[in-house]
């Protein structure tokens, strides 16, 4: 018996918080494998954003972290790891391209599995697992994609997909008899019936419904804003930062010029969210009417600030009036201070006409 045979088998795996990865973790744990779930915080998770923008009184159970919940359900350790800066660089130029929005599904898998492999080395884990199901997703979970991902990550023989394992080539651990292949599954396709049956059997009660909607990058509106931002900023020789990505998640977006964009809040929660990012930017709001908070992304001149004011006026309660009084304030950069802090160091109050729908349409990125 070799040393590796005597040590308990250890696995690290990708745990999104969805049912499939929860079941995958549990299948291994039930075989006596020591399991560590990895949840990579990419900055594009809709659940995290939902929480950041939650309305008062919203049921906190709807806002919980689904990966932590999944770890509790499967009774396996889940580690949340911030990879957002590195992930953003990948998303800007994914080698395998995008899906129908800004979703680089294949490169996302490769990115996360490479990260998992690095952690597996540190942890001494022989297996890397995922909750992937053969044929479940058109872009990243067909047979060729699974094979290609395994090859590109250098995980041949180590990458285990417990839910579809019996339909895939055996891993080294299965071949060595350290994992009982007979206790792994042969699920294929988009049906969720078998997963739900297993969840009942394992008493896994709370899990998010599969919607494919947990990643902003797969959302078409978000994708349009994302591609616009990356294209324009890179043309200007600028680097897209984390705040600019955060701000793609809210509001109506209008491009005034290549170097300037206006984001208009759509409700109180979005207005509050925008306020948190006002430091170092111009904030615009109507003075005499209820209406949105807008942020100007970039450094506007007087004429551009007037356009931003005119757009803001279009969405306030005075939009039917010939002229609306609007206040623009530029906030100081509040380094190290809480969100929303900082004081206005420049203020401009102006009367503007609400922008016409025709003019607005030409500036609209996403309404």
């Amino acid at each position, binding site marked *: 018996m070799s040393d590796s045979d005597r040590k308990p088998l250890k696995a690290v795996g990708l745990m999104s918080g969805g049912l499939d990865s929860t079941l995958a973790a549990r299948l291994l744990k039930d075989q006596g494998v020591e399991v560590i*779930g990895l949840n990579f915080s990419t900055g594009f998770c809709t659940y995290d954003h939902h929480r950041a923008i939650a309305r008062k009184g919203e049921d906190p159970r709807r806002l919980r*972290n689904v990966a932590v919940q999944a770890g*509790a359900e499967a*009774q396996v350790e889940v580690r*949340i790891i911030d990879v957002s800066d590195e992930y953003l660089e990948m998303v800007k130029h994914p080698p395998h391209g995008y899906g129908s929005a800004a979703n680089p599904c294949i490169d996302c898998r490769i990115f996360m599995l490479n990260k998992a492999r690095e952690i597996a080395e540190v942890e001494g884990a022989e297996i890397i697992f995922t909750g992937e199901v053969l044929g479940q997703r058109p872009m990243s979970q067909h047979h060729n994609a699974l094979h290609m991902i395994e090859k590109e990550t250098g995980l041949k023989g180590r990458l285990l997909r417990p839910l579809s394992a019996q339909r895939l080539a055996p891993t080294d651990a299965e071949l060595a008899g350290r994992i009982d292949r007979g206790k792994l599954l042969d699920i294929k396709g988009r049906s969720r019936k078998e997963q739900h049956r297993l969840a009942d059997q394992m008493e896994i009660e709370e899990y998010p419904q599969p919607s494919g909607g947990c990643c902003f990058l797969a959302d078409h509106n978000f994708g349009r804003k994302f591609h616009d931002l990356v294209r324009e900023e890179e043309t200007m020789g600028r680097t897209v930062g984390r705040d600019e990505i955060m701000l793609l998640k809210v509001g109506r977006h209008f491009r005034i010029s290549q170097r300037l964009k206006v984001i208009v809040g759509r409700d109180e929660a979005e207005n509050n969210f925008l306020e948190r990012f006002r430091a170092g930017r111009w904030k615009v709001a109507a003075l005499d009417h209820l209406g949105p908070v807008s942020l100007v992304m970039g450094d506007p001149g007087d004429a551009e600030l007037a356009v931003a004011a005119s757009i803001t006026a279009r969405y306030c309660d005075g939009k039917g009036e010939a002229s609306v009084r609007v206040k623009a304030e530029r906030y100081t950069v509040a380094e190290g201070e809480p969100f929303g802090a900082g004081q206005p160091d420049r203020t401009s109050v102006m009367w503007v006409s609400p922008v016409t729908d025709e003019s607005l349409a030409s500036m609209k990125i996403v309404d």
Partner: protein
Amino acid sequence: MTDRASRNEWRELEARRAPDGLAGDLVLDTVGLYCPVPIMKTAARISGLAAGQVIEVLSDDRVILIDMPAWCRSTGHAYLGFREEARQWRLFVRRK
């Protein structure tokens, strides 16, 4: 402990108040931060404690009252409960 009993205990933990006078060996202030950051910071800081020591986490994100007991069930650390103070919460976790 059966899965069912363990699950029930986990659910009951969400409502558990910390014993009077309980104080952490380490205090972690996460006020102003939203999930998953407070949990990530807790995980990072608790690893520096010895087994049996207690971390005291201050948060103004009410959802942490659900996430922290779940995280403890996931990791095996002991959740000792919370105290509420003017729309902020102090949560106590004993390192396994």
